């Protein structure tokens, strides 16, 4: 741990060495503050603050705050944010200045600009790559399955991101596994982002403000997953007036209420939704169906309180459940998360966030009491975490960020009990598992000369297994020899990781730039999921004496260029990833209710590479993006197969087109088209007959492919007339999923004919034909 003390020193040395380009004798002062929307008081994330005379500036952080330290003088300071009227003001900087800037929306433009980028040239000048940010208005325009607009389905349309299975919420980023994505809702980890077996995600778009996906170049303040970070931020609520938003769709309805508790100081938002397909089941003539239950609901809530200029707190939470039951079985699962955050301004240059987090995922499976087979099975995963993050705007050229986090994980992989007096089942409990995951980081963003920015940082992560615990010992052929039992409170295993994160930017006069990044990430928790789409029953399991942490190194280089006053952003990125200790499972693995689960795991190496082309449009009439990706992903796990095999997410060619046309004031048309090479699959290359059944003899792992995937979705939105100060507005959205009725493969079964048992044939299973839907959305506000 010597490194810990050495590291900050290196930082300061580096900064002192490059120093400031400005004369030393001039006195410096800091201008800092917050940029908000003058309409609802919500903070504006990524607004530009620009000093005309010095041709320098900054962007607001995720709480709308900024800080600039400049030499004494007279300046013109400009505040801009797309969709808002820019403000320029003269300031005399002869002392530290703190200000609150409220920007007004441009009513007209708001309707016409659908994709709201951060500062318009951020794509080029910000020293971050492999990142895609979308605000909720962009996502809401994307045609959706059954009209249910979905954050994760929008993410799956990005270059470098693949859906793992038709209709699934699972996604693979740059060839990584779906459990290698960190999904955060207001910083709390969401362990299972799916509703209804994955056809919908847990994110209710009415409660979401924006989402940001890091596919690489992952900032040092994030840790714990190899491939990506999806950072979802909840809306803060309108602090100036009340708003009611809602929607009625064919399978679900939503309602959101937000408003001030104390004007301009304290606001709240509460949002809920529920599906109601099953409400019609009692009308069914089929007796068996009448008692079925199948629905999900979720609730998001947030309270935001600005105590004073230096202190702000918020409390936010999510709770959702899926419920399924019929006369034979019942099942329910869901997440709950909670976030408390305190934002504190220590000084004009030093901002602090303190966060406590709670996350809970659980499921229950069972049969009704009173039968010989009655049982109930529960599993649960719980996190409690604290986090502290500091941003230090040291001088114009250096912004230092540092902090740490600690998370206590409790995993109950499953307890099954017979229930009732008639049951023949006894009790089975897979022992609970306790661990502590912690990390500290420090990173600096440094401007070196007018064109070069370097971002360099380090994260140190630590994972400790805490007793009580049982560790099984295995032979090299994965047979259990014996076990060690550890008492409560004992730390019986520790892993640590040093994770450098480096990003470089060179810009050519703010029109184009070259960026490069390197990031090492460690992952200590993984999902025991052996199927392509997964189920809510899949459990997470931690690193242990038998399971080493997974390690990923990613190197990426990109060229970025904007055209037509930044309304067209283009980029090309090339990446290569090396993965160590990646996991797969033995053939016919038993992952549920198995206390020797670790004996089912097989580990090895992985690598993936690709090139991503992206054109993003922010034009007034047309917005959206067009992307093409060529990528490959392989696993080399000798205990599965001696030669490398394509990862299940290896789909070399991928085209995504997401376009939105504001054809007239009240008419909006959107379309998306996705094409991907068929997923790799193992097919039979022979057959044998056993006890009357023809069984396949298989090829090597993933030697074949499904048919190529392609799909077109369309949506038309008709809105009510836009008038200033109008209280009520609405829109009607018609959408068609899979517009040309492509029967995309979900799976292929090899079937033995019923009539002639010697005949076998291949049968494709597809999930969706054309699915039309209609959604009515309304909005009401009260000043």
């Amino acid at each position: 741990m010597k490194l810990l003390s050495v590291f900050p020193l290196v930082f300061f040395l580096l900064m002192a060495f490059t120093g400031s380009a400005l004369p030393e004798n001039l006195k410096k002062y800091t201008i800092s503050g917050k940029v908000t929307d003058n309409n609802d008081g919500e903070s504006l994330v990524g607004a530009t603050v620009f000093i005309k005379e010095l041709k320098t500036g900054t962007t607001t952080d995720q709480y709308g705050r900024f800080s600039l330290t400049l030499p004494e003088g007279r300046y013109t300071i400009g505040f801009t944010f797309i969709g808002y009227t820019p403000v320029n003001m003269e300031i005399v900087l002869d002392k530290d200045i703190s200000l609150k800037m409220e920007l007004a929306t441009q009513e007209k433009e708001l309707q016409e600009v659908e994709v709201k980028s951060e500062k318009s040239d951020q794509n080029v000048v910000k020293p971050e790559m492999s990142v895609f940010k979308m605000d909720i208005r962009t996502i809401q325009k994307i045609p959706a399955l059954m009209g249910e607009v979905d954050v994760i389905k929008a993410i799956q349309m990005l270059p470098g991101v693949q859906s793992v299975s038709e209709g699934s919420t699972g996604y693979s980023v740059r060839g990584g596994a779906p459990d290698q994505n960190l999904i955060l809702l207001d910083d709390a980890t969401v362990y299972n982002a799916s509703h209804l077996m994955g056809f919908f995600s847990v994110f209710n778009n009415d409660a979401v403000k924006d989402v940001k996906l890091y596919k690489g170049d992952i900032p040092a303040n994030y840790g714990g997953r190899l491939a990506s970070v999806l950072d979802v931020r909840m809306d803060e609520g309108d602090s100036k007036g009340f708003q009611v938003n809602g929607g009625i769709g064919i399978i679900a309805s939503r309602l959101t209420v937000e408003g001030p508790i104390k004007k301009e100081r304290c606001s709240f938002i509460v949002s809920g939704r529920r599906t109601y397909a099953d409400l019609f089941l009692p009308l069914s003539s089929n007796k068996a169906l009448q008692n079925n239950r199948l629905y999900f609901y979720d609730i998001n809530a947030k309270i935001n309180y600005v105590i004073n200029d230096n202190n702000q707190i918020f409390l936010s939470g999510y709770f959702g459940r899926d419920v399924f039951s019929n006369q034979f079985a019942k099942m329910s699962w869901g997440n709950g998360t909670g976030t408390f955050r305190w934002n504190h301004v220590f000084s004009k240059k030093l901002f602090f966030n303190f966060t406590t987090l709670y996350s809970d995922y659980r499921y229950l499976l069972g049969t009704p009491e009173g039968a010989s087979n009655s049982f109930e099975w529960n599993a649960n995963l719980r996190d409690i975490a604290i986090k502290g993050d500091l941003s230090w705007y040291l001088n114009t050229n250096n912004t230092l960020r540092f902090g740490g986090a600690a998370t206590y994980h409790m995993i109950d992989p499953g307890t099954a009990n017979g229930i009732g007096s008639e049951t023949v089942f006894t009790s089975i409990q897979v022992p609970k598992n306790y661990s502590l995951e912690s990390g500290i980081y420090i990173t600096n963003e440094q401007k070196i000369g007018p064109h070069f920015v370097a971002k360099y940082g380090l994260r140190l992560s630590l994972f400790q297994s805490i007793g009580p615990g049982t560790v099984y010992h295995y032979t090299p052929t994965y047979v259990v020899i014996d076990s060690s039992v550890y008492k409560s409170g004992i730390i019986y295993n520790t892993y640590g990781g040093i994770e450098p994160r480096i990003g470089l930017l060179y810009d050519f006069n703010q029109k184009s730039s070259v960026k490069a990044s390197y990031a090492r990430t460690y992952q200590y928790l993984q999902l025991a999921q052996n199927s392509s789409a997964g189920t809510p029953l899949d459990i997470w399991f931690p690193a242990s004496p038998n399971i080493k942490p997974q390690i990923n190194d990613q190197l990426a280089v990109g060229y970025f260029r904007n055209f037509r006053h930044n309304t067209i952003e283009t980029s090309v990125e090339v990446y290569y990833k090396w993965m160590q200790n990646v996991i797969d499972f033995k053939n016919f693995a038993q992952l549920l209710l198995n206390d020797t689960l670790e004996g089912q795991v097989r580990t090895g190496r992985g690598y993936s590479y690709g090139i991503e082309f992206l054109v993003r449009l922010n034009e007034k009439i047309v917005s959206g993006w067009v992307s093409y990706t060529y990528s490959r992903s392989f696993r080399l796990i000798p205990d599965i197969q001696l030669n490398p095999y394509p990862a299940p997410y290896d789909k070399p060619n991928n085209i995504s087109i997401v376009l939105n046309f504001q054809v007239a004031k009240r008419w909006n048309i959107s379309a998306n088209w996705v094409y991907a090479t068929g997923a790799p699959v193992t097919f039979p290359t022979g057959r044998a007959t056993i006890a009357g059944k023809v069984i396949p003899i298989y090829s090597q792992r993933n030697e074949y492919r499904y048919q190529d995937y392609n799909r077109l979705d369309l949506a038309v939105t008709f809105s009510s007339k836009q008038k200033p100060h109008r209280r009520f507005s609405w829109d009607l959205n018609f959408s068609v999923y899979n517009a040309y009725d492509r029967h995309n493969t979900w799976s292929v079964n090899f079937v033995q004919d019923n009539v002639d048992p010697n005949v076998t044939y291949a049968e494709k299973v597809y999930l969706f034909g054309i699915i039309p839907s209609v959604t009515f959305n309304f909005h009401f506000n009260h000043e």
Partner: protein
Amino acid sequence: MNKLLLSLLVLLLAAGCTERININLDNSYIRLVVDGGITTDSLQRSVTLSKSASYFYNQPPPMVSQAMVILTDGSFLDTLKEELPASPGKYTLDSNFRGVIGKTYNLIVKLPEAIGDFTEYASSCKIMKVPRLDSIHAEFNPNMGKNGFWLVKIYAMEPGDEMNFYMLKYYRNSVLISDSIQKWTTSDDKYFNGSYINGLTAFYINNNHPWETLHPGDTLMVQMSGITNEYYNFIQQVQQAGYQIPFFSGPPANVEGNISNRGVGFFTAYSNSFAKLVIPKHNP
């Protein structure tokens, strides 16, 4: 036990559409396929030998004739004779043979010409014990399915000493209804190790299926067999083979048998216990 629940979920949520498709598949090398075994009674004492074929071969499997098939328990040695000309490829033991619980039996196959580069294959299997079936019970549930289901329940004392694995089949009026591997029920004792199996449902029989349903007056017989862990896994793998449900199925993989030299299939040996019941008249 969770299999039932999962299949229900799948039915409800993913009643996807299907269509037949044409796929071009390569051909793997030919393997020897061994299928059969011995029991502690006269129920089974034969083994069939066949060859693997290309996946869309669509004909009866090519049988392997004129092989020498030997069974040994270390001391005792016996030869299985090919049933010619009635059933080429089927090799049967002397009718007096009875397997003994606790013994391990080895099967040795010598071929007249090599299959998959080998002329000699071997396999072995131990006969596990089976608890005595105290009784069985058949219960009609009119609420399940369209025309109801018969639930066949079993009663037996499960020995708590070790992990045991069971296979269950049923007969209607002395005719084996569980006549293909898909219809066999298997269970380990994980959920009731050492306790009395007090009415575990072994079969769910759809009353809509005339070929398997029960009628008043029928004699129902259940056969419970003690099998090895390997054979239990093998049956489960064969039952699932060929089907992929993206929610639950792992990557497809070859069924793991117990034949040496990359042979396919299983030579099994197991013990049996039986219980009978005449379906009462007052049941529907």
